[in-house]
């Protein structure tokens, strides 16, 4: 390596200063103003297991999004076919995101093919079976389009969740896609994990539907649901007893307007009861639609349905122009605030499932930091003491290298903004055990050389030279194992792998380079005849 001792001392000094530079914010919390602009701002990041927080892996049910699209397409197709005077029956969405239908007219298929070609390029005919005069036809979304749609669904969900988390107000959230249809979310320091989960996982599909008052609700509940109607439920709380009950509604299935037409939503407190509700404002198209819908349905009831639950179904007294409406219900302040957030951020294009959740409360995180630091200090002290007793002054040199090792690992973590986790602390402690190995190898070698009668200077040189290749081999194999671990690992385990890799790289520098500088400095300047080893 570098022969000149001066250059080597300079390199050591530069590395130490750089490490010190990156660690200043971690150890000094308030840097006075003229200095602060020249120094890095970031402290060492603590992992979720140390500072508390939530780690979530969500799966987006992209199949559901595909099915919803097929459902919409089948409704549109019905109208198109009627316009084109094709005679058909039983057109409906079938299993596995397909549409099944029966053409009753032999000539129908040519027209159907033309309609598909002109207006529904995404649809293709999957199968045709001839059956007494008519044809049974199955349509499906073509494969490329289905893949695109799924991809789009994931992107849209990611965007929506980002919006929601931003508005919820979490410091430094991490939201990244994983694999085909998964999203990884990390929310450090979250206080109310349940609320955050509800906020993120809620589909928040807002729909406006007309209540069917021409047909009997009782009859429908007995199982005779009129064509084009559905039954939906709302909750009602009895104010005096506090008991919650379900109220059924008979609704026209057709959705007149959705949350997609909203411009904004905000929490307001009602004047009369002081109860919070969410007031919504439609965008210009939405407002025009709302105007038309209310005009056409005066005296009827308009149900406001959120994720299939009827929140309220007020009677439309008169045409409403201006595009304002209110969603009431028995909301708490937090609930209405969260509802406003999800409405503003928009609905998720598909339902999400929680695949993995790891939440650590802040108190456990504090305990872990305390115990982790305690274990590191005691573990390092044991090693320091052992080296001192066993190798005396040379042990002191090794100990200096070890202290540098810890210091540099922390500096690298701070510089690269990697997180320190509990397994990371374990990794650091282990690196101390392994890093000292390099020095043990060297020292044992030097002792062997001294036994053969070599001078201190020569024994030192041979010892370092002979041990070097072994040390590189052991470090490389350790780094290999840690790299495997890093690619496999999730969250905390990755922290273990990362600190181990950093630790091993740093140890190559501290255990070989720095200790050599110290030895050379003293043997050259003080004419040492006998090594204390």
């Amino acid at each position, binding site marked *: 390596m570098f022969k000149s001792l001066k250059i080597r001392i300079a390199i050591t000094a530069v590395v130490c200063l750089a490490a010190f530079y990156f660690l200043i914010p971690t150890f000094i919390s308030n840097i006075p103003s003229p200095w602060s602009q020249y120094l890095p701002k970031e402290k060492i990041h603590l992992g979720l*297991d140390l500072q508390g927080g939530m780690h979530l*892996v969500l*799966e987006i049910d992209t199949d559901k999004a595909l099915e919803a699209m097929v459902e919409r397409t089948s409704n549109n197709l019905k109208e198109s076919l009627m316009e084109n005077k094709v005679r058909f029956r039983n057109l409906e969405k079938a299993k596995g995101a397909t549409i099944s239908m029966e053409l009753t007219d032999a000539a129908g298929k040519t027209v159907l093919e033309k309609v598909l070609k002109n207006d529904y390029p995404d649809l293709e005919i999957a199968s045709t079976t001839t059956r007494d005069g008519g044809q049974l036809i199955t349509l499906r979304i073509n494969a490329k389009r289905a893949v695109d749609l799924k991809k789009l669904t994931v992107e849209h969900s990611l965007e929506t969740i980002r919006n929601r988390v931003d508005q919820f107000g979490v410091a430094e959230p991490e939201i990244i896609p994983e694999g085909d249809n998964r999203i990884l979310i990390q929310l450090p320091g979250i206080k109310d*994990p*349940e609320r955050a*989960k509800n906020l993120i996982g809620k589909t928040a599909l807002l729909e406006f539907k007309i209540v069917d008052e021409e047909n009997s609700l009782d009859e429908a509940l007995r199982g005779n649901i009129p064509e084009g109607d559905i039954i939906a439920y709302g909750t009602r709380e009895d104010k005096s007893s506090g008991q919650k009950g379900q109220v059924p509604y008979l609704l026209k299935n057709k959705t007149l307007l959705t949350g997609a037409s909203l411009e904004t939503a905000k929490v307001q407190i009602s004047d009369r009861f002081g109860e919070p509700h969410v007031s919504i404002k439609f965008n210009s198209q939405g407002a025009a639609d709302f105007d038309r819908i209310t005009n056409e349905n005066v005296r009827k009831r308009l149900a406001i349905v959120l994720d299939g639950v009827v929140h309220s179904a007020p009677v439309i007294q008169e045409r409403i122009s201006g595009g304002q409406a209110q969603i009431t219900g028995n909301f708490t302040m937090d609930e209405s605030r969260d509802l406003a957030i999800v409405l503003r951020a928009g609905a998720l294009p598909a339902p999400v*499932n*929680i*695949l*993995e*959740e790891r*939440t650590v*409360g802040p*108190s*456990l995180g504090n305990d872990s930091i305390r*115990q*982790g630091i305690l*274990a590191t200090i*005691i*573990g*390092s002290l*044991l*090693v320091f003491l*052992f080296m001192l*007793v*066993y*190798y*005396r002054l040379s042990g002191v040199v090794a100990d200096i290298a070890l202290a540098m090792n810890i210091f540099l690992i922390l500096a690298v973590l701070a510089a690269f903004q990697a997180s320190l986790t*509990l*397994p990371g602390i*374990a990794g650091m*402690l*282990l690196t*101390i*055990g*392994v890093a*000292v*190995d390099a020095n*043990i*190898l060297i020292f*044992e070698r030097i002792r062997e050389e001294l*036994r053969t009668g070599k001078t201190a200077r020569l024994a030192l040189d041979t010892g370092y030279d002979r041990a070097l*290749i072994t040390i590189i*081999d052991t470090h*490389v*194999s*350790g780094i*290999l*194992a*840690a*790299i*495997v*671990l890093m*690619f*496999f*690992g*999730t969250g905390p*385990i990755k922290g*273990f*792998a990362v600190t181990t890799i950093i630790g091993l790289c740093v140890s190559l520098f501290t255990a070989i380079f720095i200790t050599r500088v110290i030895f050379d400095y003293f043997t050259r300047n003080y004419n040492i005849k006998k090594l204390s080893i």
Partner: protein
Amino acid sequence: MSMELIKPGINIDFVGKMKYAMIFSAVLILIGIGSIIFHGGLNPGIDFAGGSIIQVKFSKNISADQIRTALKSTKLENSTIQQFGANEFLIRTSESFSDPKMLEVNVGQPLSAAFNKEYEIRRVEVVGSKVGADFTRKAIIAVILSWLAILIYVTWRFELRYALGGILALVHDTLIVIGAVSIMNMEFTISIVAVLIFVIGFSINDTIVTLDRIREIVKRNPKQKLSEVINLAINETLSRTILTSLTVFLTLLALYIFGGAVIRDFAFAMLVGTVFGTYSTVYIACTSVLLFEKLQPSKMKRK
């Protein structure tokens, strides 16, 4: 005089005791496998099997039975409840709550009803079975991949027969740690997989140091019998092998005692791995080079 744990010039006949070491290792591994069969397989943690762990701390004295009573007629009725420090408990269930509301209904509400607000949920881990299957696949791949990576590296740096000895030792270490985990009836978690891979890295470390020495002695003295060379190399590096293992052992012991309950199983498995990693270096990895010598004669000796 310097302090010396191992006197220079020590000459223990490791190679001669190879047969007993092999039998000893085989017995240990069989005991481990027996324990796994006895327990009806490994005890997979939620990382692999899917399920939930909820860590709850109470601000007053509570027994596991009181918690069980509180959770009666919820989905957590059949969960295992384990004391985890003073007034702190782990509730484990195979149920994985993918619906955000389920946790509140099955844990929060019944606990609040029974203990008012005198508890704090400190940690929740939920892993769906789908993710669990993913982790299992990845864990197996990772362990095998780390064997392969090291096999290739050692083959490149030394010779195949040395690498084979090293890998034999690594497989040995992996099996022993898995056996120990089963005997202690510990959960097999992702942390344990991390231990396996670390032990693989640590054990090959020792092996490489000794292999390096074998190579050096062969160069110095090409006529010497291989069994003697191996013995000499192990003896010459013995002091370093034991010292390094000792320092790693000390740091792990500190972690085991002071690191807290969350990391205790991890530290325990590491301790076992360190001890057996060192043992396997001396008795398995290096001595078995002799076995492979019969399959593929040395190139080094001819140099």
